[in-house]
């Protein structure tokens, strides 16, 4: 039986010209900025946004035994019929797999068992990779919507797109409820309905995703999405060589020459996030790829 999302605290604060809603979801601080005079309306929209975040987290969390994803991962190779929303996410993951030439792979999460990117110096032990690699590869999964066969021992992990999807869904639901200027920000991945009522962009402070420990980026967002891929703090050092946490699912080893972090602005949080992910998977070619794609971007090396 699937359980619903866990209710958690939230806060709503009046600010100059808008309301700021705050809550936690997906291990990130989350925000809603909404331009309204009405506390009650801001409260209602915050409820919509927070509940959608919590719902998606509960449904697609790897950590919750009752989640829809956990049910798939525990299927033991049996043929499963998945719900319509899961099907849409799997279709999109499949598209990302194709567009990345197999580098984006939602079955690669099991590689975490042999890599610990905690700033330490441990490489996988000999033989580890040979044992784990047979459990990685989207092409081993049979996906014919709505039916899924996930071979025994393999696991799906939607962490690579869940947060961006949640941002876009939350904003979409909020916009269906009220037509006003809003910005949804889940831990630095964000999307805005458009500029503020006075035509000015939203100004958002986010922790510099590209490593400066104390620095805060001030972003001006007037519509669309903005997301970051990569995490400059997750790496390991072995014999003076830095191993980043972006793994090539074909070899199980880090992508050579990967940027530490890539930030992209595009039409939605999912589009921005996936462009950033595709770029980082290009290794040394990230900048060239982003230039070709003609998106606004920032790359940290």
């Amino acid at each position, binding site marked *: 039986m699937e359980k*619903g999302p866990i209710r958690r605290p939230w*806060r709503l604060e009046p600010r100059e010209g808008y309301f700021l809603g705050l809550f936690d979801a997906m291990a990130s601080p989350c925000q809603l900025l909404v331009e309204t*005079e009405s506390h009650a309306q801001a409260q209602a929209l915050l409820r919509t946004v927070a509940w959608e975040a919590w719902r998606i987290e509960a449904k697609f969390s790897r950590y919750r035994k009752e989640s829809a994803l956990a049910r798939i991962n525990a299927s033991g190779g049996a043929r499963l019929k998945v719900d319509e929303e899961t099907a849409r996410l799997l279709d999109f993951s499949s598209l990302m797999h194709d*567009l990345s030439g197999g580098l984006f792979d939602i079955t690669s999460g099991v590689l975490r068992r042999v890599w610990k990117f905690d700033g330490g110096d441990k490489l996988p032990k000999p033989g580890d990779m040979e044992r784990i690699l047979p459990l990685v590869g989207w092409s081993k999964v049979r996906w014919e919507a709505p039916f899924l066969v996930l071979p025994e021992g393999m696991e799906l992990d939607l962490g690579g797109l869940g947060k961006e999807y949640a941002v876009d869904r939350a904003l979409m639901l909020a916009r269906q409820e009220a*037509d006003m200027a809003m910005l949804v920000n889940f831990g630095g991945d964000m999307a805005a309905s458009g500029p503020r009522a006075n035509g000015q962009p939203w100004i958002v402070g986010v922790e510099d995703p590209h490593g400066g420990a104390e620095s805060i980026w001030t972003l001006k967002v007037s519509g669309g999405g903005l997301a970051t891929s990569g995490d400059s703090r997750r790496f390991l050092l072995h014999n003076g060589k830095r191993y980043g946490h972006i793994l090539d699912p074909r070899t199980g080893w880090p992508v050579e020459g990967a940027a530490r972090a890539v930030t992209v602005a595009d039409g939605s949080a*999912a*589009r921005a996030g*996936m462009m950033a992910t595709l770029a980082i998977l290009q290794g040394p070619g990230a900048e*060239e790829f982003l230039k070709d794609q003609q998106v606004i971007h920032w790359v940290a090396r």
Partner: protein
Amino acid sequence: MQLKKQSVRNALAVGAAAMMGATNSASALPAWDVETGVATYVEMGGRITVMELTGVAKTHISDDKTLKLKVSLDTVTGASPNGATATSKPQTFTSPSGNTPYDVKPGDIPLDPTFRDTRVGGSATWEQDISTMVKGNVGINAGSETDHLSIGVNGGLSLDMNNRNTTLFAGVSAEWDQVAPVGGVPHRMVTTGPGVVKTVDSQSDSFTVADALVGLTQTISRRMLTQINYSHSLSNGYLSNPYKVLSAVNGATGETIDYVFENRPGDRTKQSVFWRIKYSFDQDVLDLSYRYMWDSWTITSHTAELKYYWILSSGDRLEPFVRYYTQTAADFYMPSLVYADTLPQYASADARLAKFDATTVGILYSMKMDRKSEMGIRLEYYAQKGTDHPAEAIGIQKGYDLYPETSAFVAQLLWSF
């Protein structure tokens, strides 16, 4: 390599849009917001009990058009004061239908135990944006009881000004009421003789009510909002209560000699001013309001209410409130009248037209069930106090309680989805 082409971005755009699911709301049926409630109102001392079911459904037909439907059903049972005063001898009354006599012991406030009714009501309101700054609404409402039928229409306009910091609003409504009392409309202000058997004037009568309201909502600061309004109401027609009598007492001893059915003036003009302030803390909201009402029957009333919306860390809501109400008496109110050859033209002993004050305290606890639905429970206590021993009490009346006090509990369960 495939990734070098700009089409990756386009393919992602299409794929990401498909991942979001159907957003094509134009073809979808409008979704309804529904609020339902079941409530019980119980007066202490075995008096009136009301069971009520309510439902409100609201939908956006399109971005600028809203339809709201409301239905209610309630049943009323119990005993209600009939207007006569306590006296030293047993009293016998005839029920409004004329079929069931009931006796009242010496010293007791007479209550009519045959009171029961089922009421159904409904309304529909259409709200629409006329321009970006002007909204309009029109509505109809109807209600039916065993002895009462009413139909009303209403309409209003609101105008946003001053960067939406000011909203001006105005509304009008009209209502037609048909009253067909159980057992007929009694002949008023004529002694009935023992047993209180009425002389029937007609089977039914009617009245009309017209209301107008103008007001203004003003944002004072990001945290504070205020609203003021003025309303004017005219009622015309049969405004008496067909079930209420007055005791006609001996002017020296106070003993009840006879009874008359009450009579009220055929028109009433009511005016009121209302003022509200809402203050938002970081999450909680304080809501203070005050109303002053005055009418052509010389009733003036003050209502003050304090409400606090307390948002708990779980997102649930607690709403404690306290309301105080006080009014002066109508000029034709009297607990009883002196038996004489000439009776006054207008008189009523209805406790609701007397000088009294009332305090209500209550609390609502509202709990979110999921993104859209909410469950709530409301508890209220109401206490009404009047003058038990008024200066105009005569003789033996001084020893009796002349004002039927009311205290009541309200419990309500609410579910919105």
